[in-house]
Protein backbone atom coordinates (compact mmCIF):
# COMPACT_ATOMS: atom_id res chain seq x y z
CA UNK A 1 0.00 0.00 0.00
CA UNK A 2 2.75 2.49 0.98
CA UNK A 3 4.61 1.48 -2.17
CA UNK A 4 1.55 2.46 -4.28
CA UNK A 5 1.47 5.76 -2.44
CA UNK A 6 5.11 6.47 -3.29
CA UNK A 7 4.68 5.44 -6.92
CA UNK A 8 1.65 7.69 -7.29
CA UNK A 9 3.86 10.69 -6.55
CA UNK A 10 5.40 10.07 -9.96
CA UNK A 11 2.08 10.15 -11.82
CA UNK A 12 2.11 13.87 -12.66
CA UNK A 13 5.73 13.80 -13.95
CA UNK A 14 4.67 10.65 -15.86
CA UNK A 15 1.76 12.51 -17.47
CA UNK A 16 4.12 15.33 -18.38
CA UNK A 17 6.64 12.92 -19.90
CA UNK A 18 9.31 13.99 -17.44
CA UNK A 19 10.23 10.55 -16.11
CA UNK A 20 13.31 8.68 -17.23
CA UNK A 21 12.33 5.81 -19.61
CA UNK A 22 13.17 3.25 -16.92
CA UNK A 23 10.98 4.94 -14.35
CA UNK A 24 8.17 5.41 -16.86
CA UNK A 25 8.27 1.68 -17.65
CA UNK A 26 8.09 0.88 -13.95
CA UNK A 27 4.99 3.06 -13.60
CA UNK A 28 3.41 1.43 -16.65
CA UNK A 29 4.13 -2.09 -15.42
CA UNK A 30 2.49 -1.24 -12.12
CA UNK A 31 -0.53 0.29 -13.83
CA UNK A 32 -1.12 -2.90 -15.82
CA UNK A 33 -1.54 -4.85 -12.59
CA UNK A 34 -3.26 -2.27 -10.38
CA UNK A 35 -6.78 -1.16 -11.32
CA UNK A 36 -6.90 1.12 -8.28
CA UNK A 37 -3.88 3.16 -9.40
CA UNK A 38 -5.30 3.21 -12.95
CA UNK A 39 -8.42 4.86 -11.53
CA UNK A 40 -6.29 7.41 -9.65
CA UNK A 41 -4.28 8.15 -12.81
CA UNK A 42 -7.45 8.77 -14.84
CA UNK A 43 -8.68 11.28 -12.26
CA UNK A 44 -5.25 12.89 -11.98
CA UNK A 45 -5.03 13.26 -15.74
CA UNK A 46 -8.41 15.00 -15.86
CA UNK A 47 -7.40 17.34 -13.01
CA UNK A 48 -4.02 17.94 -14.64
CA UNK A 49 -5.61 18.85 -17.98
CA UNK A 50 -7.96 21.31 -16.32
CA UNK A 51 -5.23 22.86 -14.19
CA UNK A 52 -3.15 23.40 -17.34
CA UNK A 53 -5.87 25.77 -18.52
CA UNK A 54 -5.57 28.04 -15.49
CA UNK A 55 -5.11 31.64 -16.55
CA UNK A 56 -2.62 34.09 -15.11
CA UNK A 57 -3.81 37.49 -13.90
CA UNK A 58 -2.02 40.81 -14.20
CA UNK A 59 -1.48 42.94 -11.15
CA UNK A 60 -2.36 46.61 -11.15
CA UNK A 61 0.52 48.20 -13.00
CA UNK A 62 0.75 51.15 -10.66
CA UNK A 63 1.57 50.45 -7.03
CA UNK A 64 -0.60 52.04 -4.36
CA UNK A 65 0.47 55.61 -3.44
CA UNK A 66 1.54 54.61 0.06
CA UNK A 67 3.79 51.86 -1.32
CA UNK A 68 5.25 54.25 -3.88
CA UNK A 69 5.77 56.79 -1.13
CA UNK A 70 7.64 54.30 1.07
CA UNK A 71 9.85 53.09 -1.77
CA UNK A 72 10.70 56.49 -3.11
CA UNK A 73 11.21 57.97 0.35
CA UNK A 74 14.09 55.60 1.01
CA UNK A 75 17.15 56.72 -0.87
CA UNK A 76 19.97 55.15 1.07
CA UNK A 77 23.55 56.01 0.27
CA UNK A 78 25.12 53.60 -2.17
CA UNK A 79 28.25 51.58 -1.43
CA UNK A 80 30.38 54.31 -2.96
CA UNK A 81 28.82 56.91 -0.73
CA UNK A 82 26.82 58.74 -3.37
CA UNK A 83 23.09 58.67 -3.89
CA UNK A 84 21.82 56.28 -6.53
CA UNK A 85 21.10 58.10 -9.79
CA UNK A 86 17.33 57.79 -9.78
CA UNK A 87 16.85 59.92 -12.88
CA UNK A 88 18.84 57.48 -15.01
CA UNK A 89 16.35 54.69 -14.47
CA UNK A 90 13.25 56.85 -14.74
CA UNK A 91 14.37 58.53 -17.94
CA UNK A 92 13.49 55.48 -20.06
CA UNK A 93 10.04 55.27 -18.51
CA UNK A 94 9.31 58.88 -19.50
CA UNK A 95 9.49 57.85 -23.13
CA UNK A 96 6.12 56.05 -23.05
CA UNK A 97 2.85 58.01 -22.76
CA UNK A 98 1.39 55.43 -20.37
CA UNK A 99 4.18 56.08 -17.93
CA UNK A 100 3.66 59.83 -18.03
CA UNK A 101 0.67 59.89 -15.70
CA UNK A 102 2.34 57.50 -13.25
CA UNK A 103 5.47 59.61 -13.34
CA UNK A 104 3.51 62.80 -12.73
CA UNK A 105 1.94 61.22 -9.63
CA UNK A 106 5.34 60.03 -8.48
CA UNK A 107 6.88 63.47 -8.93
CA UNK A 108 4.09 64.97 -6.81
CA UNK A 109 4.72 62.43 -4.08
CA UNK A 110 8.45 63.09 -4.21
CA UNK A 111 7.98 66.84 -4.12
CA UNK A 112 5.78 66.49 -1.06
CA UNK A 113 8.39 64.31 0.55
CA UNK A 114 11.18 66.76 -0.26
CA UNK A 115 9.25 69.51 1.49
CA UNK A 116 8.49 67.56 4.63
CA UNK A 117 11.44 65.25 4.83
CA UNK A 118 15.04 65.75 3.95
CA UNK A 119 16.87 62.97 5.63
CA UNK A 120 18.28 59.82 4.17
CA UNK A 121 19.07 56.55 5.82
CA UNK A 122 22.72 55.68 6.43
CA UNK A 123 24.08 52.63 4.63
CA UNK A 124 24.43 49.64 6.89
CA UNK A 125 21.69 50.67 9.25
CA UNK A 126 18.21 49.20 9.26
CA UNK A 127 16.28 50.84 6.42
CA UNK A 128 13.52 53.03 7.71
CA UNK A 129 11.17 55.64 6.33
CA UNK A 130 9.44 58.66 7.69
CA UNK A 131 6.12 58.63 5.92
CA UNK A 132 4.56 62.04 6.32
CA UNK A 133 1.00 63.14 5.79
CA UNK A 134 2.13 65.25 2.83
CA UNK A 135 2.94 62.06 0.90
CA UNK A 136 -0.64 60.81 1.16
CA UNK A 137 -3.95 62.29 0.19
CA UNK A 138 -5.65 62.09 3.55
CA UNK A 139 -8.95 62.97 1.91
CA UNK A 140 -8.98 59.45 0.45
CA UNK A 141 -9.27 57.92 3.91
CA UNK A 142 -12.81 57.25 5.07
CA UNK A 143 -13.48 58.92 8.43
CA UNK A 144 -15.16 56.47 10.78
CA UNK A 145 -15.69 56.06 14.50
CA UNK A 146 -14.14 52.94 16.06
CA UNK A 147 -17.62 51.49 16.41
CA UNK A 148 -18.32 52.00 12.69
CA UNK A 149 -15.27 49.96 11.61
CA UNK A 150 -17.39 46.81 11.99
CA UNK A 151 -19.50 47.72 9.00
CA UNK A 152 -16.69 49.25 6.95
CA UNK A 153 -15.79 47.79 3.57
CA UNK A 154 -13.30 50.44 2.44
CA UNK A 155 -9.57 49.62 2.73
CA UNK A 156 -8.31 53.05 3.78
CA UNK A 157 -9.77 54.53 6.94
CA UNK A 158 -9.18 57.26 9.51
CA UNK A 159 -10.42 56.79 13.04
CA UNK A 160 -9.97 58.57 16.38
CA UNK A 161 -9.52 57.46 19.97
CA UNK A 162 -7.39 57.24 23.11
CA UNK A 163 -4.05 55.44 22.94
CA UNK A 164 -3.42 52.52 25.32
CA UNK A 165 -1.01 49.62 25.66
CA UNK A 166 1.74 50.85 23.35
CA UNK A 167 3.99 47.87 22.64
CA UNK A 168 7.23 47.92 20.68
CA UNK A 169 8.67 44.80 19.09
CA UNK A 170 12.25 45.71 18.07
CA UNK A 171 12.80 42.32 16.42
CA UNK A 172 9.81 42.69 14.10
CA UNK A 173 10.30 46.44 13.83
CA UNK A 174 6.68 47.08 14.80
CA UNK A 175 4.84 49.31 17.24
CA UNK A 176 1.32 48.23 18.20
CA UNK A 177 -1.20 50.02 20.35
CA UNK A 178 -4.86 49.97 21.25
CA UNK A 179 -7.05 52.85 20.18
CA UNK A 180 -10.15 52.97 22.39
CA UNK A 181 -13.26 55.10 22.24
CA UNK A 182 -12.91 56.10 25.92
CA UNK A 183 -10.91 55.48 29.08
CA UNK A 184 -13.24 52.59 29.95
CA UNK A 185 -11.34 49.32 29.25
CA UNK A 186 -14.53 47.66 28.00
CA UNK A 187 -15.10 50.38 25.40
CA UNK A 188 -14.80 49.37 21.73
CA UNK A 189 -11.23 49.49 20.52
CA UNK A 190 -9.16 48.90 17.41
CA UNK A 191 -5.57 47.57 17.32
CA UNK A 192 -3.17 49.76 15.36
CA UNK A 193 0.24 48.68 14.06
CA UNK A 194 3.10 50.74 12.70
CA UNK A 195 5.29 48.42 10.67
CA UNK A 196 8.84 48.75 9.48
CA UNK A 197 10.09 50.29 7.18
CA UNK A 198 7.47 52.97 7.89
CA UNK A 199 8.87 54.88 10.81
CA UNK A 200 6.89 57.28 12.92
CA UNK A 201 7.03 58.08 16.61
CA UNK A 202 4.82 55.90 18.80
CA UNK A 203 1.90 57.95 20.15
CA UNK A 204 1.85 58.77 23.85
CA UNK A 205 -0.24 56.67 26.21
CA UNK A 206 -3.68 58.21 26.82
CA UNK A 207 -3.23 60.85 24.12
CA UNK A 208 -6.16 61.37 21.74
CA UNK A 209 -5.14 60.78 18.13
CA UNK A 210 -6.51 60.28 14.65
CA UNK A 211 -4.99 57.25 12.91
CA UNK A 212 -4.89 56.81 9.13
CA UNK A 213 -4.22 53.38 7.65
CA UNK A 214 -5.46 50.15 6.14
CA UNK A 215 -8.51 48.53 7.78
CA UNK A 216 -8.27 44.82 8.54
CA UNK A 217 -9.99 42.20 10.62
CA UNK A 218 -7.94 39.73 12.61
CA UNK A 219 -9.86 36.48 12.95
CA UNK A 220 -7.44 34.40 15.03
CA UNK A 221 -9.26 32.55 17.80
CA UNK A 222 -7.55 34.51 20.56
CA UNK A 223 -8.08 37.86 18.87
CA UNK A 224 -11.07 38.58 16.64
CA UNK A 225 -10.57 42.31 16.54
CA UNK A 226 -10.43 45.10 14.01
CA UNK A 227 -7.08 46.53 13.07
CA UNK A 228 -5.57 49.51 11.34
CA UNK A 229 -2.49 47.85 9.91
CA UNK A 230 -0.25 49.31 8.65
CA UNK A 231 -0.72 52.76 10.16
CA UNK A 232 0.22 55.35 7.53
CA UNK A 233 -0.20 58.55 9.50
CA UNK A 234 -1.04 59.71 13.02
CA UNK A 235 -2.40 63.15 13.89
CA UNK A 236 -2.26 64.04 17.59
CA UNK A 237 -5.49 65.83 18.55
CA UNK A 238 -5.05 66.06 22.36
CA UNK A 239 -1.98 65.24 24.42
Amino acid sequence: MSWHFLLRRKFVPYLEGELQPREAKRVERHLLDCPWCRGVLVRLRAGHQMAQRLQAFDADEHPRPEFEAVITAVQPLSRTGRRAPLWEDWFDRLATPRAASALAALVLVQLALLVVSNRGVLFGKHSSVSLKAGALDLGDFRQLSIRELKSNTRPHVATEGYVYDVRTDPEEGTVAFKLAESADPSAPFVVCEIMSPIEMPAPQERSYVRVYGVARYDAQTDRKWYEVNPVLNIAVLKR
Partner: protein
Amino acid sequence: MAIERLEQTKFRGVRDSARERALVLAAQGGDVGAFRQLYDAYRDRIYNLVLYSIGDPFNAQDVLQTVFLKVFRSLRSFRLQSSLSTWIYRIAHNECQDHHRRRTMAHMPLEAILGSSDEIDTKPRSDHQHARQERERIIQRAVMQLPFKMREVVVLKYVEGLSYDEMSRVLGCAPGTVASRLNRALVELEERLRPFRRLL
Protein backbone atom coordinates in the same frame (compact mmCIF):
# COMPACT_ATOMS: atom_id res chain seq x y z
CA MET B 1 16.94 23.72 -34.93
CA ALA B 2 15.66 22.44 -31.61
CA ILE B 3 19.22 22.47 -30.23
CA GLU B 4 19.64 26.01 -31.45
CA ARG B 5 16.43 27.03 -29.70
CA LEU B 6 17.57 25.29 -26.53
CA GLU B 7 20.91 27.09 -26.68
CA GLN B 8 19.13 30.41 -27.18
CA THR B 9 16.92 29.70 -24.18
CA LYS B 10 19.95 28.71 -22.11
CA PHE B 11 21.75 31.87 -23.14
CA ARG B 12 18.73 34.00 -22.34
CA GLY B 13 18.51 32.28 -18.94
CA VAL B 14 22.13 33.09 -18.16
CA ARG B 15 21.74 36.64 -19.41
CA ASP B 16 18.55 37.12 -17.36
CA SER B 17 20.10 35.74 -14.21
CA ALA B 18 23.19 37.95 -14.67
CA ARG B 19 20.94 40.94 -15.18
CA GLU B 20 18.88 40.02 -12.13
CA ARG B 21 22.03 39.65 -10.05
CA ALA B 22 23.16 43.10 -11.16
CA LEU B 23 19.75 44.54 -10.25
CA VAL B 24 19.84 42.92 -6.81
CA LEU B 25 23.32 44.27 -6.12
CA ALA B 26 22.27 47.73 -7.28
CA ALA B 27 19.11 47.62 -5.15
CA GLN B 28 21.13 46.45 -2.15
CA GLY B 29 23.41 49.41 -2.77
CA GLY B 30 20.48 51.81 -2.55
CA ASP B 31 19.36 52.13 -6.17
CA VAL B 32 15.59 52.54 -5.94
CA GLY B 33 15.29 52.32 -9.73
CA ALA B 34 16.80 48.84 -9.64
CA PHE B 35 14.31 47.82 -6.99
CA ARG B 36 11.49 49.14 -9.17
CA GLN B 37 12.75 46.95 -12.02
CA LEU B 38 12.75 43.91 -9.75
CA TYR B 39 9.25 44.84 -8.62
CA ASP B 40 8.10 45.13 -12.25
CA ALA B 41 9.70 41.77 -13.10
CA TYR B 42 8.04 39.88 -10.24
CA ARG B 43 4.83 41.84 -9.69
CA ASP B 44 2.52 39.73 -11.88
CA ARG B 45 4.03 36.38 -10.86
CA ILE B 46 3.62 37.09 -7.16
CA TYR B 47 0.19 38.60 -7.75
CA ASN B 48 -1.04 35.31 -9.23
CA LEU B 49 0.00 33.34 -6.17
CA VAL B 50 -1.51 35.94 -3.87
CA LEU B 51 -4.75 36.33 -5.82
CA TYR B 52 -5.42 32.62 -6.12
CA SER B 53 -4.55 32.20 -2.44
CA ILE B 54 -6.74 35.04 -1.20
CA GLY B 55 -9.48 35.20 -3.80
CA ASP B 56 -10.24 38.88 -3.65
CA PRO B 57 -8.39 41.20 -6.06
CA PHE B 58 -8.47 44.22 -3.80
CA ASN B 59 -7.04 42.42 -0.78
CA ALA B 60 -4.61 40.64 -3.09
CA GLN B 61 -3.26 43.99 -4.27
CA ASP B 62 -2.88 44.98 -0.63
CA VAL B 63 -1.03 41.79 0.26
CA LEU B 64 1.12 42.17 -2.87
CA GLN B 65 2.32 45.57 -1.65
CA THR B 66 3.00 44.15 1.82
CA VAL B 67 5.06 41.35 0.24
CA PHE B 68 7.18 43.84 -1.69
CA LEU B 69 7.57 46.08 1.36
CA LYS B 70 8.99 43.05 3.15
CA VAL B 71 11.20 42.23 0.16
CA PHE B 72 12.37 45.83 0.16
CA ARG B 73 13.05 45.75 3.90
CA SER B 74 14.95 42.47 3.81
CA LEU B 75 16.77 42.76 0.50
CA ARG B 76 20.04 43.71 2.18
CA SER B 77 20.05 40.38 3.99
CA PHE B 78 19.44 38.40 0.78
CA ARG B 79 22.47 36.35 -0.20
CA LEU B 80 22.87 35.70 -3.88
CA GLN B 81 23.65 32.01 -3.35
CA SER B 82 19.93 31.22 -3.50
CA SER B 83 17.38 32.07 -6.15
CA LEU B 84 15.72 35.47 -5.86
CA SER B 85 12.43 34.16 -7.24
CA THR B 86 12.26 31.37 -4.65
CA TRP B 87 13.08 33.86 -1.91
CA ILE B 88 10.32 36.26 -3.02
CA TYR B 89 7.81 33.42 -3.49
CA ARG B 90 8.65 32.25 0.02
CA ILE B 91 7.91 35.70 1.47
CA ALA B 92 4.65 35.75 -0.51
CA HIS B 93 3.75 32.26 0.69
CA ASN B 94 4.33 33.29 4.32
CA GLU B 95 2.27 36.42 3.86
CA CYS B 96 -0.60 34.49 2.25
CA GLN B 97 -0.47 31.91 5.01
CA ASP B 98 -0.53 34.65 7.59
CA HIS B 99 -3.42 36.34 5.82
CA HIS B 100 -5.25 33.05 5.57
CA ARG B 101 -4.83 32.38 9.30
CA ARG B 102 -6.02 35.83 10.25
CA ARG B 103 -8.98 36.11 7.96
CA THR B 104 -12.27 34.35 8.09
CA MET B 105 -13.05 32.89 4.70
CA ALA B 106 -16.74 33.69 5.06
CA HIS B 107 -16.53 37.10 3.52
CA MET B 108 -14.03 36.19 0.79
CA PRO B 109 -15.79 37.70 -2.22
CA LEU B 110 -15.03 35.07 -4.84
CA GLU B 111 -17.65 36.54 -7.08
CA ALA B 112 -15.81 39.84 -7.02
CA ILE B 113 -12.99 38.40 -9.08
CA LEU B 114 -15.27 36.45 -11.35
CA GLY B 115 -17.51 39.42 -12.00
CA SER B 116 -14.99 42.22 -12.18
CA SER B 117 -13.72 41.86 -15.73
CA ASP B 118 -17.26 41.67 -17.09
CA GLU B 119 -18.15 44.88 -15.37
CA ILE B 120 -15.17 46.65 -16.86
CA ASP B 121 -15.16 45.08 -20.29
CA THR B 122 -17.84 46.77 -22.38
CA LYS B 123 -16.69 45.44 -25.77
CA PRO B 124 -19.01 42.92 -27.34
CA ARG B 125 -17.57 39.41 -27.36
CA SER B 126 -18.18 36.57 -29.71
CA ASP B 127 -20.03 33.50 -28.43
CA HIS B 128 -16.88 31.46 -28.83
CA GLN B 129 -14.83 33.93 -26.79
CA HIS B 130 -17.55 34.16 -24.19
CA ALA B 131 -17.76 30.38 -23.86
CA ARG B 132 -13.99 30.12 -23.49
CA GLN B 133 -13.95 32.76 -20.77
CA GLU B 134 -16.78 31.00 -18.96
CA ARG B 135 -14.83 27.74 -19.02
CA GLU B 136 -11.76 29.50 -17.63
CA ARG B 137 -13.83 31.02 -14.85
CA ILE B 138 -15.29 27.68 -13.87
CA ILE B 139 -11.78 26.26 -13.49
CA GLN B 140 -10.54 29.35 -11.62
CA ARG B 141 -13.48 29.14 -9.24
CA ALA B 142 -12.86 25.46 -8.61
CA VAL B 143 -9.17 26.11 -7.86
CA MET B 144 -10.04 28.96 -5.51
CA GLN B 145 -12.37 26.68 -3.60
CA LEU B 146 -9.64 24.12 -2.94
CA PRO B 147 -8.13 24.09 0.57
CA PHE B 148 -5.41 26.72 0.96
CA LYS B 149 -2.38 24.38 0.76
CA MET B 150 -3.68 22.58 -2.31
CA ARG B 151 -4.54 25.86 -4.02
CA GLU B 152 -1.00 27.13 -3.50
CA VAL B 153 0.65 24.08 -4.98
CA VAL B 154 -1.63 24.12 -8.05
CA VAL B 155 -0.89 27.79 -8.72
CA LEU B 156 2.86 27.41 -8.22
CA LYS B 157 2.93 24.49 -10.63
CA TYR B 158 0.41 25.39 -13.32
CA VAL B 159 0.43 29.20 -13.32
CA GLU B 160 3.98 29.90 -12.21
CA GLY B 161 5.60 26.80 -13.70
CA LEU B 162 7.81 25.98 -10.71
CA SER B 163 9.55 22.62 -10.44
CA TYR B 164 8.95 20.25 -7.51
CA ASP B 165 12.28 21.30 -5.98
CA GLU B 166 11.46 24.98 -6.29
CA MET B 167 8.00 24.42 -4.83
CA SER B 168 9.47 22.50 -1.92
CA ARG B 169 11.82 25.40 -1.15
CA VAL B 170 9.00 27.95 -1.36
CA LEU B 171 6.59 25.90 0.74
CA GLY B 172 9.21 24.64 3.16
CA CYS B 173 8.44 20.93 2.76
CA ALA B 174 9.95 17.89 1.03
CA PRO B 175 9.46 17.40 -2.75
CA GLY B 176 7.59 14.16 -1.95
CA THR B 177 5.12 16.11 0.19
CA VAL B 178 4.67 18.57 -2.67
CA ALA B 179 3.95 15.69 -5.05
CA SER B 180 1.41 14.11 -2.68
CA ARG B 181 -0.26 17.45 -2.06
CA LEU B 182 -0.43 18.11 -5.80
CA ASN B 183 -1.98 14.68 -6.38
CA ARG B 184 -4.64 15.31 -3.76
CA ALA B 185 -5.31 18.75 -5.25
CA LEU B 186 -5.72 17.40 -8.78
CA VAL B 187 -8.01 14.58 -7.67
CA GLU B 188 -10.11 17.06 -5.72
CA LEU B 189 -10.14 19.47 -8.67
CA GLU B 190 -11.34 16.68 -10.93
CA GLU B 191 -14.09 15.85 -8.44
CA ARG B 192 -15.24 19.46 -8.19
CA LEU B 193 -15.22 19.90 -11.97
CA ARG B 194 -16.78 16.55 -12.83
CA PRO B 195 -20.32 17.99 -13.09
CA PHE B 196 -19.00 20.55 -15.60
CA ARG B 197 -16.98 18.05 -17.60
CA ARG B 198 -19.15 18.30 -20.71
CA LEU B 199 -18.98 22.09 -20.64
CA LEU B 200 -15.22 22.11 -20.25
